[in-house]
Every structure is written in structure tokens, then in C-alpha cells.
């Protein structure tokens, strides 16, 4: 187990190197002069020259690559072109809202989706099951931004129960204000994951309910509720957790849209701003950062299997 963790952590290094090279080449291999692209249509020759100098683009490619890797190895993701701040600082500033948004979304999703899917599986074929499946299809089909604006229109503008947009840090404004501002973004972002995880939970639990040990539990006189919780759900956990993990990894795209709709100053907004401003160092830094998170989540999922299923040992 211990060796497995070490092995997996060591294995992230080559993956990160490949991602870094890819990010490096992405800028250099894009058609045209990257400095001119970054400077934009109205830039003067001096502007382009200045950017080229600043990014070190006037040096030979191998030298650039060496510098880039060396810089990364020191934990330095470079400096933003416009704000002139280190990319790590920018990411650090924007981390909190995104992290809290993602965390609330995951908790909300799991609390809603797993019971829904379990009930649907238990009552397969009933109206509850059909409702859950209908919701699931709808949840998959509605684009995040449409849902977001619909929720804002109904709950914030017409009924005026929730704020339209913005972010209040719980550390400054307290938990209540934070939650009030979080409700709509969390619902918006979680709908698709609830749809996905409820479906997956339904399928898995339905399968597990056919297993012999569920029959054994019933033969012991166990109540249906405990059969579901103690026997079925525990055995369905591995596939469900896998999907939850994948959901977290896929959440990055949803975060960009949600943060834009609700004007939350998080990493998603940073991505959007950096792309619009063609701030390449920031984009590069964010890609690397998200890749790292992705790898980390995968490792955590794999390790969680050993807790959920005693047959899995690394």
C-alpha cells in the first residue's frame, strides 16, 4: 500500500513532464508569431518586440524549453503579461471561491444523487423511478448557462429570494452570506452531475440487489432499509465513487461557465479572462495546475477503493 502510493506519486512526474512539454509546444507550434498573436491586432512593432523579449521567444527553442522546465522545477509558473504578477500568485488568489464552489457542488450532488438513484433502483419501474430517469435525461440536456440564467430570472429577479450574483467569502462575511450566494451556482453546476450519478447509482444498485448476499440479508430478517444501506449501497460504492471522481475532473469546464454567469472571481473566471486577453503564461499555468489536480483526484479515487472494497489491495 505504502509502496503503491509512492509508486503512483513518482508516476505523476513523467505525466506532468509530458503535459508541460505539450503546453510549451502549444504556444510555439501555433501558426504565426506567438508574440504578434499575444500583442493583438493593434500592436506596434515595438510592442511585439517587447513581448517577444519578455517571453524569451527570441532564443532558440531548445534553450526556451530548458528554461521553461527549469522554471517549472522551481515551482514557478511564470509571470502574467498584463497584471505582471506571478501566475502562482494569481492562482492562489482565485483558488478559494472555486474550491468552495466545487466542494459544495460535490457534497450537494452526492447528497441528492445517491439517494435518488438508490430509491429509483429499489422501486424500479415505479413512477419514482420514471421521474428520476426523466430528470436525468433533462439534466443531461440543459446547457449550464441556460439553466443558470433561468434560475437567476425566477429565483433572484422575480421572487427576489436569492442574490443575483457575486461571491462572499465565508471568512469575511460569515457562513450565511456565503451560502446565500452559493445556492444558485451550486444548483446550476450540480444538475448535470446529479443526473449522471443518479443514473449510475440506479444501475449499480439495481445490479447489486440481484446478488445472492442481498437474499441472504433478507433471509436473516433484515429490514429493507438496512438491506439497501448496509448491503446494497456498500457494494455499489466502487463504481459510484469512480463516477463521482470523473465528475469532479470534468467539473473544470462547468466551473468556467458557472463562474462567468454568477460573476464569481474564481479560477474559472481567470481561465476565461486569460483566454480573452491571450495571456499565455497564465493559460499555461492553469493547464498545468488543472492537470495536476486531475492526477491527484485519480490517485485519491484509486486509494479510496481499498477502503470501500477489502478485496482490492495494492
Amino acid at each position, binding site marked *: 500500500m505504502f*509502496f503503491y502510493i509512492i509508486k503512483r506519486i513518482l508516476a505523476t512526474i513523467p505525466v506532468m513532464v509530458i503535459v508541460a512539454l505539450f503546453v510549451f509546444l502549444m504556444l510555439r507550434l501555433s501558426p504565426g508569431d506567438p508574440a504578434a498573436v499575444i500583442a493583438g491586432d493593434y500592436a506596434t512593432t515595438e510592442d511585439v518586440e517587447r513581448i517577444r523579449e519578455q517571453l524569451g521567444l527570441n532564443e532558440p527553442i531548445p534553450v526556451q524549453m530548458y528554461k521553461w522546465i527549469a522554471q517549472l522545477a522551481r515551482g514557478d509558473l511564470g509571470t502574467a503579461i498584463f497584471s505582471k504578477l506571478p501566475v502562482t500568485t494569481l492562482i492562489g488568489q482565485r483558488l478559494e471561491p472555486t474550491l468552495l464552489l466545487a466542494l459544495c457542488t460535490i457534497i450537494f450532488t452526492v447528497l441528492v444523487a445517491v439517494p435518488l438513484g438508490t430509491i429509483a433502483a429499489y422501486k424500479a419501474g415505479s413512477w419514482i423511478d420514471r421521474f428520476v430517469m426523466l430528470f436525468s435525461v433533462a439534466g443531461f440536456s440543459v446547457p449550464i448557462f441556460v439553466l443558470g440564467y433561468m434560475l437567476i430570472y425566477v429565483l433572484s429577479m422575480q421572487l427576489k429570494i436569492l442574490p443575483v450574483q457575486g461571491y462572499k467569502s465565508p471568512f469575511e462575511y460569515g457562513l450565511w452570506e456565503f451560502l446565500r450566494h452559493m445556492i444558485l451556482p451550486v444548483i446550476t453546476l450540480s444538475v448535470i452531475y446529479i443526473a449522471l450519478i443518479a443514473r449510475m447509482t440506479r444501475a449499480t444498485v439495481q445490479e447489486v440487489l440481484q446478488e445472492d*448476499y442481498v437474499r*441472504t*440479508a433478507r*433471509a*436473516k430478517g433484515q429490514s429493507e432499509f438496512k438491506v439497501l444501506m*448496509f448491503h446494497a449501497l456498500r457494494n455499489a460504492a466502487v463504481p459510484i465513487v469512480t463516477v463521482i471522481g470523473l465528475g469532479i475532473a470534468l467539473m473544470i469546464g462547468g466551473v468556467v461557465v458557472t463562474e462567468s454567469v454568477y460573476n464569481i472571481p474564481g479560477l474559472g473566471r481567470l481561465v476565461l479572462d486569460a483566454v480573452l486577453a491571450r495571456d499565455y503564461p497564465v493559460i499555461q499555468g492553469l493547464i498545468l495546475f488543472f492537470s495536476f489536480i486531475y492526477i491527484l483526484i485519480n490517485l485519491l479515487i484509486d486509494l479510496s477503493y481499498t477502503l470501500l*472494497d*477489502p*478485496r482490492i489491495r495494492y
Partner: protein
Amino acid sequence: MSDTVLEIKGLTVRLPEGADREFAIEDVSLTVGKGEIVCIVGESGSGKSVTAFTVMGLIPKKDLVPVAGQILLQGDDLLKKSDRQMRKLRGEKMAMVFQEPMTALNPVVKVGDQIGELLEIHTNMSRAARKTRVIEVMKDVSLPDPEKMYNSFPHQLSGGQRQRIMIAMALALEPGLLIADEPTTALDVTTQAEVLELIKDIQRRHGMGVMFITHDFGVVADIATRVIVMQHGKVVEQGTRDQILTDPQHPYTKMLIGSVPSLTPPDRPEPKAAEVALEAHKLNKVYGTSGFFSKGRVVHAAQDVELVVHRGETLGVVGESGSGKSTVARCIVRLIDPTGGDITINGANIATMTEREMRPYRQQIQIVFQDPYRSLNPRRTVGQSIVEGPMNFGLGAAEAQVRAEDLMRIVGLAPEALDRFPHQFSGGQRQRVCIARALAMEPKVLIADEAVSALDVSVQAQVLRLLHDVRERYDLAMLFITHDLRVAAQICDRIMVMQHGVVVEQGRTADVYANPNHPYTKSLLAAAPGRDMDFARLA
């Protein structure tokens, strides 16, 4: 009457519409007395399991509806109980042991806790008291080191140990009625003998009534006080063990008992000197790898196996699960790659051939698998499955069709049935199709890997006869893999006994059965259920 634990009167359970018959069981009446082991015997579809599950209240209510009769458990009618009352009775007054110990236990919960769960549901014992009681019942079913095993997970235990856990679970609250649904069918014969002994022993000590569902007359002979024979959902005959086994009245009972293969090998003519069809020399298969950081577990599934099969001869490979008998079969067909050794067929060593080199030889070795329900592609007609192989080797569609029709006749099926899909056949018919499929390749060697183990005893006898006939007809060399000593006695000219990947004994079948040399062979023969009875002669 106070000695009657369970009395079923005129029980009828309806099947859902569209089933092959109206009732799963019809007008079933039987009793189980205190201190009695009542065996319900029948083939698949006889309704024996439905009877047991109806008593437990574990049948799917939507599909199976009891429409008439009474089930009296110590005088109380179970069919009148609410779900809640039934839950209270299950585990406390009646308990059940299932067929598959591999799947009947929850894989992610410690076995001790799974036994303890029963006490948690039905009693208000403290956690510590529960644990004490659990360890007590684990001792009662002779599990080694219960304190340690309490914390084991099911996958860490053997099949026999798991079945003991199931029995301990059933015993924990000392119920008056124990229902055992084929509890030893999935176990190896030596384990089966131990578990049967255990069930007899606890039944004697606790004085409970046992309803024991089985298809195996050997087991019946070993364990039953009384026997109830079921066919197509009805009780056709009941009586004491001796009545049923020695003087069966109903033709179905006679047929069932007559179909049980004898443990005594028939007299066989001395085999003629025939050419060698298949030879394996120093065949080895090692599973497992050593990791980079950790030392891997290495299993020698087959170790220096030597075998020779001549044309027109059947060599039996017998052994328990994990003995390596299937590994040997799969290596020879090259479904898995042997780690070392030679496999010679027609003078060519196929053990180390690449897939491309191997291809022409595939035609010469064919295999029939255990489970006819899973070895045919459900989305293709059986005709398509049969002609696929020969056509891959260049036979024209028309000739392949003719060959398939001929083979259907040979295996005893109508050639018109070639257009049907596997689900339209019974298990025995499917196995015939599988044999036809293998024969379509015109092989020299036919491997039967537990080919009759999944079949009912009457069907088993027919398929064995068919295998024997096709062997004669095509002068095949047959390698017959089985765990069933009765079957092996009847069909094999020579047998080899395997244990832990090693061949411990081989010789002519009659010699090995009459004078087993190796202690393992002796223990296998001693464990065969109903060994004292020669059923075929009785009927």
C-alpha cells in the same frame, strides 16, 4: 403433532403469465418433523427451490403468487403474516443456507459481523455479548481459530469455510427449521462430505427440523431421513430414505435413481494399440508475477504434467477445484499459453507456436465447456454458431450447411432447429449443440471440460452416451475433465488424478477405482456421496 416443525398443505404458487406452465408448484403437501432431515429431490424446474423460498417468504411477490394452501410453521400460517412479521420469523424461527457460498456472503463486510447482524436484528444483546455468541457459533461449526476469523472477509476463506459461516449464521438463534438449498452442490467432494457431516451433526445436537433441497441422490443416501420427489411442480412420491432408494414406486423416481452413474467402472475391453493423438510432456503453467516493489504470489497451476491420449480413447482428468485440471485443458487447446513443456499433436509441438502458426492446428482440437447457457452466442442462431468454424477454414456455405444438418441428426436434434436461437433450447439440447459445433471442425481431439456437470442427472446420462457414441464414430481422442467420480467411472478408459497442479496418480479407470494408491485418490473416493449405494442396480 407437536413434533411437526413445518407442515405445508396443498400449496400452489402461480407463475407469471407467459411462463411455460401455469403453476410453479401445485398442491404440494409435506411435513418436516423435529429431528428430521427431509430431502426434496428433483431436477431443474421441479419446483423444489420455489417451495423452499415460499416458506421463507423470499419469492419475488410480483412474479410468484401463492394462490392456495397453507404453510404452518409450528402451527402458525406463514401465508397470513405481514412482511414485518415474516422478517421477525426469518432468522429467528427459520433459517436458510444457500447453494453458492461464494456469493451468498457480502464481500465487503467481515464475516463475524455478518453473523452478528442476525443478533443485532433480532435481539438487544450488547456488542460484546454479540461477539461472544458469534464466536461460540463459529466454534460450533468447527471453524478454526474463530477469534481471528471473525475479522476475515469472505474472499479470504475457502468455499467450505464460507458455507460453515452460512451455517453458523443459520444456527445463531437456534431456529426450529433449517432450510438448506443445495448447500453442498458448489463444493468439492471432500468438502461436501465434511459439510454434510456437519449438518447431520448440528441437526442431531440441536434437534431442529431440516428441509434439504438437492438434485443429488448420493447426497440423499448420505443424509436423508425421509425423501420427497418432485417433478414439474408436483410431489410425485414420498417416503423414508430406504423406501425411496431401494423400492421406488413412481416411474420418474425410478428413472432418476437409474440415471445416477455407478461408482463402479464397467468392464472395458483392453484398448487396442492405436496411434497417439495427443501428448503432453512436462507441461507447466505458472500464474502470478513478481512486482517491482513487492514479491508477487506465484501459483503453479500445472506442474510437469505428462499425458498421452490415443485415438478412440477417453482419458479422464479428475480433481477438485484448484487442482489444475481445467488449466491443463486450456493449455492444450492453447486458450492460455503454457509456461513450459511440449504439447504434441500429429507430431507437431504446439506449445510454443505463435497464434499464426497455431491456426491450422486449432481445427484438430476442439473443446466443449461446462456451461451450455453461456458458451453459445445468444444473438446468433445455433446454425450460424456451428458453421462459423468450418467456414473459417475454407468450407463453402452450402457444404457447411449440409455438415451442420448431418451433425444435428447425429447429436439427436432436428436439422430444422438450426435456425433457432440458443434460448429456445433446454440445457441438455444446448450441450448437444455445443458438441455438434465442436464436431463440425472434424477434430482429432475432443476436450470436454466439465461438459456434463451443469446438467440434470437424466440429461447427463444422455449426453454421456452421446459423447461415447461420437467418440466411437469419429475415432476421437477424448480428454474428459471432471470433478465427478461417478461420471468419470462410466466414461473414461484411463484416468489421472490431479491435486494442486500435480498428477498424483494415473492408470486404467477400473484399476484406480479398485486399488487407489495415492492417499488423495483414496480420500476422493471415500468422500463420494452415497458411495455405499449402487443406484443403477437398485432401480
